[in-house]
Each structure stands twice: as structure tokens, then as C-alpha cells.
């Protein structure tokens, strides 16, 4: 066992240790285990985010601007056949999530059975900044578990938008599990552990691994089209007010949850690289080098669309202008994006299969994601991207304490 880890789990974090991370041990809700830092030489590996709370982690904890570097979004079909079976599945999922996000030496099961852990993260199994975010798809609320009357108001099965090229193998699912950690091996380890402990009750449907880009050279990370992506993301209390469901018309159990829109978007990077910089910047509405809006100087300058009604500077059909027109009427359409890039193999035609795992959170799918997406129909950028997968999910309310579990209110 690891004494410092155990102390840490009890909340007995001393500010001691003047760790490698200047500024203390609490960073955006993340705690850094000082001793783990010393022993592993990698402070990120000892980082943990609190598991218990009114909302799940992995959305604002940590927030998009400081999200972990590695991720996977996986979708599952529930194969349990009863409400009790579903409850068991969600309880198992909860207890694994609790262990994995805290980190700590796995139990020694002796020689009579295979080891309890894969050891992919070594014998001390660091949390590595892992967050786990569990969502329910519309299909979970069909007849199988008697949940039809408890479905969140806005939860539907995602249908194709006009520029989509959806592929069945990459769509929907009963459950979504979003895992984010500081390193890719921790994401792999967590998914492997979770599936191991839930076999028989759920079966994988699709998954996509993602990575975040660090600031290049500064500011918001870039997507694979080379543009800073997420500059205008709401933060702080604005973000909070836009994403957590508090509509009294929603089922009571759903309070504290959030609607998740997952879109797997291929980027046609070869085609994009053959387009002039002027055209690229006109499609986004921002400078590629600095991320500044075309009417501004620095990345975080606010575009003044009202001063440019003809679109002489920022084209009317540019992405930033359609996505967020910055009018009073469209203010409550805003949402929080926490996206990642992905890379797979090559397409049949020799192109790189790469793109964007779009992850958006909101309190009302229709008012936010769907409304924004409809404004973006036929934007010039649509020629260079192909949304082919994903789905809508309802991120369950947070697990409040050691007695609580994912969906306890839903299944009560």
C-alpha cells in the first residue's frame, strides 16, 4: 500500500512538499500527490480530480482550456435484461470509477486467480488525472428497463444534418463513457478495467481515442485544420449556467446532469492543405496564426459583427459568425465544447483518416446544439469536414458520496 496515497484519499492533503507545481496542490479542482510526484518524477501522474459531487467531472473539472491531454469516448449497448441488472451494471461502473479516479495499489488476489489489475500503469496505479463521464442514450429509455416515463425531456436519437455522412457502425448507444487523463495509457487502462468489470452486462459499440494539442505557441490549442479551436468557449459562471440542467419540467432525478452531443467529424486535411490561406481564414473568420477574429488583433478580441453588417471583414457565412452571432437572441444558444483530435489509419483513397471528436455540453439540446448546427448548414467549411458518427447522451447527475451510484435517482 501507499501511505501517502491513503492519507490523500482521506482528504488529509497537507500543503506540504512545495511540489514541482508552483502555486500549490489544488489546480482547477485537481489535487497533486506530492510524494507520487517525487517517486514517479511526473507530477501529472499523481493528479486526481474529485469523484464525488453534484455534477460529474470531465466537463468543467477540469475545464476545456485545461482539459487532460488524452481521451476516449466509448459507446456501449446494455445487455443486462432487467432493471435490477441495469442497476448492478451502474453500481459496478460507479465503484470502478471511484477506484480508478482515486488511484492506488490494486488488491493482491493471491495465486488462485489472475491479477486484479493489468499493471499497464505499474503496481501503484496512479490516477493520472483521470475523469470518467457517463451518459445515457435515448435507447436506454425504451421498454427494456421500464424507464420510458423517466426520459430526459430533450433526449432523442441523433438524426442526420444536411452535410452529414453518418455511418451506422459509429452511431448512438445506450451508454457513453468519456475517459480523460493526462496520458493515453491511463485512458486505455481505465477502459480496459471498466469493460473487465462489466462484462456480460454491456457490450462495446464504438470508441474513438482523442488527443488535445498544447498551446502552439500560446493560447487555445489548435485543431487539425491548424486553427485555434475553443477560443470563445464560455467559462466560469456563464459556463455553469449554460450546461447543468435545472429546468423544472425535466424529471427530478435528472437535476445536475447535462446533455452531451458527440460528433465524430472527419477532416479532409489533404484537401484543406491545398486551399489558400485567405480562403481558410475566411471560412473560419479568424487568422490562422494568432487566432484573432479577422477584425481584431489578438486571439481573445471580441469580433464586432454589428460593425460589419455586410461581412466585408468577417464573411457572413464564416464559421464563427454562424456558430455564435453574438446577439442577445443567440446568447442562450451557446454551449461548452471540450473537443479532441483523433487519428486513425488511411482511407481507401489514400487520405489520412483524422479529425475531430466534437464534445458539447448543454442544458437543452434543441435550444443549443441543434439550433447552432442548423445555422451552420452549408457553411463553406462543410466541404472540408464529414460528420460520420456520434450521438446524443444525457450525462447523469454526479455521484454525491460513497453510498451513491450513477443513475441511482433514475432507477429509484
Amino acid at each position, binding site marked *: 500500500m501507499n501511505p501517502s496515497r491513503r492519507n490523500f484519499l482521506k482528504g488529509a492533503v497537507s500543503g506540504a512538499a512545495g511540489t514541482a*507545481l*508552483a*502555486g500549490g496542490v489544488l*489546480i*482547477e479542482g485537481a489535487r497533486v500527490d506530492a510524494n507520487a510526484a517525487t517517486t514517479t518524477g511526473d507530477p501529472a501522474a499523481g493528479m486526481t480530480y474529485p469523484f464525488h459531487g453534484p455534477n460529474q467531472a470531465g466537463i468543467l473539472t477540469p475545464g476545456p*482550456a*485545461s482539459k487532460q491531454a488524452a481521451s476516449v469516448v466509448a459507446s456501449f449497448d446494455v445487455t443486462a435484461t432487467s432493471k435490477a441488472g441495469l442497476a448492478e451494471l451502474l453500481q459496478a461502473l460507479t465503484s470502478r470509477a471511484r477506484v480508478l479516479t482515486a488511484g492506488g495499489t490494486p488488491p493482491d488476489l493471491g495465486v488462485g486467480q489472475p491479477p486484479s489489475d493489468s499493471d499497464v500503469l505499474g503496481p501503484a496505479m496512479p490516477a493520472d488525472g483521470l475523469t470518467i463521464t457517463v451518459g445515457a442514450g435515448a435507447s436506454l429509455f425504451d421498454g427494456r428497463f421500464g424507464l420510458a416515463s423517466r426520459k430526459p425531456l430533450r433526449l432523442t436519437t441523433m*438524426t*442526420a*444534418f*444536411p*452535410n*452529414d*455522412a*453518418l455511418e451506422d457502425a459509429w452511431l448512438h448507444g445506450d451508454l457513453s463513457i468519456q475517459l480523460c487523463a493526462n496520458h493515453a495509457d491511463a485512458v486505455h487502462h481505465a477502459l480496459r478495467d471498466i469493460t473487465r468489470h462489466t462484462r456480460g452486462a454491456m457490450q462495446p459499440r464504438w470508441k474513438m481515442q482523442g488527443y488535445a494539442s498544447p*498551446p502552439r*505557441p*500560446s*493560447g487555445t490549442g489548435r485543431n487539425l485544420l491548424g486553427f485555434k479551436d475553443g477560443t470563445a468557449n464560455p*467559462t466560469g459562471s456563464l459556463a455553469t449556467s449554460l450546461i447543468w440542467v435545472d429546468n423544472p419540467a425535466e424529471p427530478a432525478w435528472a437535476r445536475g446532469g447535462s446533455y452531451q452531443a458527440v460528433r465524430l467529424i472527419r477532416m*479532409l486535411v*489533404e*484537401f484543406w492543405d*491545398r*486551399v*489558400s490561406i*485567405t*480562403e481558410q*481564414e*475566411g471560412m473560419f473568420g479568424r*487568422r490562422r*496564426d*494568432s*487566432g*484573432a477574429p*479577422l*477584425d*481584431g*488583433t*489578438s*486571439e*481573445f*478580441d*471580441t469580433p*464586432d459583427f454589428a*460593425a*460589419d453588417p455586410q461581412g*466585408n*471583414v*468577417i464573411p457572413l457565412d464564416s464559421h464563427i459568425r454562424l456558430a455564435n452571432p453574438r446577439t442577445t437572441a443567440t446568447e442562450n444558444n451557446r454551449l461548452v465544447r471540450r473537443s479532441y483530435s483523433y487519428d486513425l489509419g488511411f*482511407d*481507401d*483513397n*489514400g*487520405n489520412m483518416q483524422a479529425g475531430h471528436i466534437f464534445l458539447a455540453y448543454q442544458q437543452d439540446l434543441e435550444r443549443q446544439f441543434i439550433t447552432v448546427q442548423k445555422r451552420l448548414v452549408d457553411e463553406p467549411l462543410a*466541404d472540408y469536414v464529414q460528420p460520420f458518427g456520434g450521438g446524443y447522451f444525457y450525462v447523469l447527475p454526479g455521484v454525491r458520496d460513497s453510498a451513491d451510484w450513477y443513475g441511482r435517482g433514475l432507477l429509484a
Partner: protein
Amino acid sequence: MRWGKWATAAVAVAVVGGGTGTALMVLPGSGGVSSAVASAAATGDTMTMTDTSCASEWAKAPTSAGGRTFTITSGATVPGEVNLDNAAGQVVAEVESMAPRSSVRLSVTLGAGSYRWYCYPQGKPSTHSAPIALTGAAGPGPVAVSPVALSDLAGPGQQYETYAAGSLATLAAKVTQIQGDLRAGRLAAARTDWLQAQMDWELVGASYDSFGDLGQAVDGLPAGLPRGVADPQFTGLHRLEYGLWHGQDAATLETVATQLQASIGRVRANLSSPGLAGDPAQLPVRAHEILEDALRDHLSLMDNEGGGAGYAETYADAQVTRVVLSELAPLIATRAPSLVSTASGQLSALQSALFATTANFQWQPAKPATRAQRDKIDADIDATLETLSVVPDILEVHRGQ
């Protein structure tokens, strides 16, 4: 460390945003762009556009050739464009669409020679700086481009429109033939004629959705439609293809063909509209996007609704790309003398590679190409596209022109 820094940057932005709108915003501690802006300013390479003057600083700027980073600042009251031209009047660097009171960083490598700035404030007379000679042993800079005026493209645009009208007439005749096939219940003949019709449409040069909704009615795909192949909005050639290869009966498909013929009629009637073939500024884009679309939709098999015509379609796309290139050839020749012949050779190689998959002069939808054949086709189209990607850049109509 990132987190703390972010908080600082956010605060700084809020302060600046609430301020008086100074042209140059430097965020303390945020590094990157802002510090680059600051250092450019420090070396004196700031150039200002106003309503009535252009880069008056140029006369006193350093005269060294080589890598230069300018900060272009707009003190104008209207949006505008700023170009840097060489002694031959060719554009060396440009900033399009600058807003009043904004600043943009512009990095460019300048060889020895004389340069002057041109400013085009919207709705006002253009202005320019004095020419300044730069000296020093800098290597060759980026290729300069002779500006293109919209009027230069008018002739090629008209040629293309005439050509497209002819191709549409051929397509309409072929669809009439398909209607006859279906009326007589000859489904096999309809399948053969469909392939020719699909190739005729490719030969129009609008296959990459460049004719808007009217073009989509002729050539749209089911992918983005809520009900997919069963969606009533799925119409046209691919709808016909789907039915012909999925056992639908002749009577059903005759309705589809009749609707297709009407859609073609609407494209022909509106051909001169800027949203279809009527905007000559779009012709340079067409020169590379027809084949980009072939790579994206045909060679990826994305638009195969059963007919398996990807290679045939790509062959036709290569053919119409030749036509567009020939229309633009005089304008390209003075700017990139070897481009047309290079592209022509690459298009020949591509067409040969595609043709190698035929048997007895017939396209072979059911017989997959070998790995080597596919590699050759993909390699040839990729190489061609890299060549063609330059065309829209060298033939861009600058706003100032």
C-alpha cells in the same frame, strides 16, 4: 503552470476589451503572437493604412532584404486590403479584409529589389507608398503574383458557360433515352445509359455541389437526409442509380427519371446565375475542386449507390478539368509557365491509370481493381491535385483590383 497564466490573460483581455479600442493590444505574459507583434513594432516595421495614406512609415523603414515581419495597422475608418508589390507590380504579400483599428502580423521573405505598399480602403481611392529599394544577400523570396482583374476572367467564364450549356444538352438527351428505356421496361439498357448520363453530368464540371440546390437536385446524395435513401428529397442521378441497382421497378424509376429531366431543365434555365456558372471568379476554383471532389466522393466510394462508377466518374472529371484548364491557360501561362503542361501530363497519367481498370472498353463496376491499380490511380490524382491547388491562388481576384 498553464492555469495561472490563463487567469492572467483572461483578466488582461477583459480590461482591454473595456478600454478605448487601441490598435495594438499586448497581453502581459501571454507570449506568442502578442510578443511577436510587440517585437515587430520595436524594430519599426509597423505599416499603417489610413483613409488617405498608405504605409507612410515605409520611407524610413530598414532597407535590408530577407525575412521581415510587419505589423499592419489600420487607422482607416472603413475596411480595406493592403498589398505589398514588387517593382514589376506583382503582389508579394497581402492582408485581406482588415477592419478599422485592427492590427495584423505579416511575415514575408523579401529578395533584394524595390517594393511599395498599396492600400485599398473600401469605397475610397487606393493609395500607395513610395517605392523603397531593399538590399542585401537574401535568397529568392516567395513567388510574386501578377494581379488578376475580374475582367480578365470574363472571357474564360463565358467559354465555360457555353461549354457547360452544351454538356447539359448532351445530358438531357441521354436522360430522355433513359426515360424511353424505363417506359419500355428495359432495365439493363437503363443501367448502361445511366452510367453515360452520370459521366455526362460529371463533364458539366458542377459535380462538386458548385451549382447549389439546383445542382443538388440532379446529383445529390442521401447522406445528409433524415430518411436517407428513402427520403423524398433524395432525387436525381444517384436516386436513379440506387433504384436501378436495388431491384426497383421500371415504373417507379420512370417517375424518378422524369423528375431528373425537370431538374436538369432548371439548371439549364438558370445556368448564367452567379450561383451556378455565371460567376467567372469561381472558374479558377473549379480548376482544382472538380478533381478534389472526385477524390473525396468517387475514389472513397462514398457516393456509390450501387453502380460502382467511381473510376468512370473520375475519368470524366479529369476530362472536364482539362477543359477548364484550357480556358484559363492564357492567364496561367504568364504566371506559372509550366503549370498547364505539367497538369496535362498528370491528367493523362491519371486517365491511363483509370482506363487500365476497364475490360473491352467497358468500365468494370463489379470487378475490384488490384492493389497496384488503386495505388497508381491514387498517386496520380494526388500529384495532379497538388499541381492544381496553385491555380486559385495565382488567379485570385484581389479585392483591390
